[in-house]
Each structure stands twice: as structure tokens, then as C-alpha cells.
């Protein structure tokens, strides 16, 4: 479907097939963790933490690629849905950041703020889910 630049101003997104690449990148760390547990059971805790941190980054990168990939049929309504999803998720993320430490306290856990990576994951996943909901309800 060829579209004019006026209607389809989505040049900043990755092509549609990047969704599959993103999915592989996001799931790769899960597979690697299982393999590492099987092949390297005696890894020191410090190394485990560094690897875990790195793999979490890879997962976030994979989800970012999925979120920033075009749909098969992308048009001006998709852009409006994306904008609404982004607005909703930013609003929710701010509330979540404020409420999350209080919820932790309520459940008897230490007062701890969300990390930047947790927030990033929440924003990306929230964006993907809300965009899908908007798209299906159209």
C-alpha cells in the first residue's frame, strides 16, 4: 500500500519485519539465562548480577524495537492511536512512579522507588498494549 508523505508520516519507525527481530532480541536473554543455568551453574553472584543487568538491557532493546516498528497497514489513524497510547502511558507512568513506593510500604516491603529500567519497561509494554487495544477497538 503506497501512501503519500502527507498522510503517512511514519518514516521514523522501523519497517514491519523489525517486529520479529525485536521479539527475537527480547526473548534471547530468557533463552540465554536457561542455558547459563545449565552450562555454568557455579557462576559467581557478582558475575550473575552483571550478566542479568546486561540481559535486562537487551530485553528492553528488543521491546523498544517492537514498539517502534510499523504495522503492516500504517496510516494517519495509526499515528493518532500511537499518540494516544503514548500520552496515556506517560500519564500512567508518572502516577505509577509516585504510587509504587507507597504500595511497597503498604505490603511491608522497603520504601523503594522504581528504577529507570523498570520505568522504561513499564512505558514500552504499556505503550504496546494500549496501542493494540486502541487499534482493535477502532
Amino acid at each position, binding site marked *: *500500500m503506497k*501512501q*503519500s508523505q502527507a*498522510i503517512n508520516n511514519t518514516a521514523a519507525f522501523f519497517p514491519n519485519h523489525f517486529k520479529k527481530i525485536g521479539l527475537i532480541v527480547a526473548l534471547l536473554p530468557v533463552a540465554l539465562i536457561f542455558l547459563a543455568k545449565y552450562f555454568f551453574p557455579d557462576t559467581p553472584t557478582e558475575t550473575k548480577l552483571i550478566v542479568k543487568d546486561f540481559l535486562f538491557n537487551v530485553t528492553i532493546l528488543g521491546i523498544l524495537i517492537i514498539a517502534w516498528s510499523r504495522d503492516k*497497514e500504517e*496510516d*494517519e*489513524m495509526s499515528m*493518532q492511536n500511537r499518540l494516544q497510547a503514548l500520552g496515556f502511558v506517560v500519564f500512567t507512568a508518572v502516577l505509577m512512579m509516585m504510587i509504587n513506593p507507597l504500595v511497597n510500604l503498604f505490603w511491608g516491603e522497603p520504601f523503594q522507588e522504581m528504577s529507570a529500567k523498570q520505568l522504561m519497561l513499564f512505558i514500552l509494554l504499556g505503550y504496546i498494549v494500549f496501542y493494540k487495544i486502541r487499534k482493535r477497538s477502532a
Partner: protein
Amino acid sequence: MKNTIKVERAKQNMTQQDLAEKIGVSRQTINSIESQKYIPSTVLALKIAKVFNIKVEELFELEEDDFL
């Protein structure tokens, strides 16, 4: 803002998919415009009007609520 896209489509025996392909949008977008869930951009409105060979004012009409 109401529109007569469904009527014009019926006159020309055209499906939502046919119209979507002609103007380069998804079928869902046409469905949303027809059911007044989505208001198209000027470019898209002009494109739709051109497909039906009518003026855009004949296709789209403002309602009382639009002036509030």
C-alpha cells in the same frame, strides 16, 4: 461531524476495502470514519471526495456539537 461515505460507497457498489486501497489507508480507518469514531485529515477527506467525484462539503457535514 457526520458523513455520507457509506451512502456514496453503496451508490458505487464499493466495499470498505476497495475504498481503503484507493486512498491508501487501512479498512479499519474507513470503518472508523464511517462510524464517526475518527475524523480524517484534510488530505484524506479530499482524497475520499475525489474517489466519489463529489465536493468534500457534500461528503462531510458539521453538526451542532462541532460548534460548541
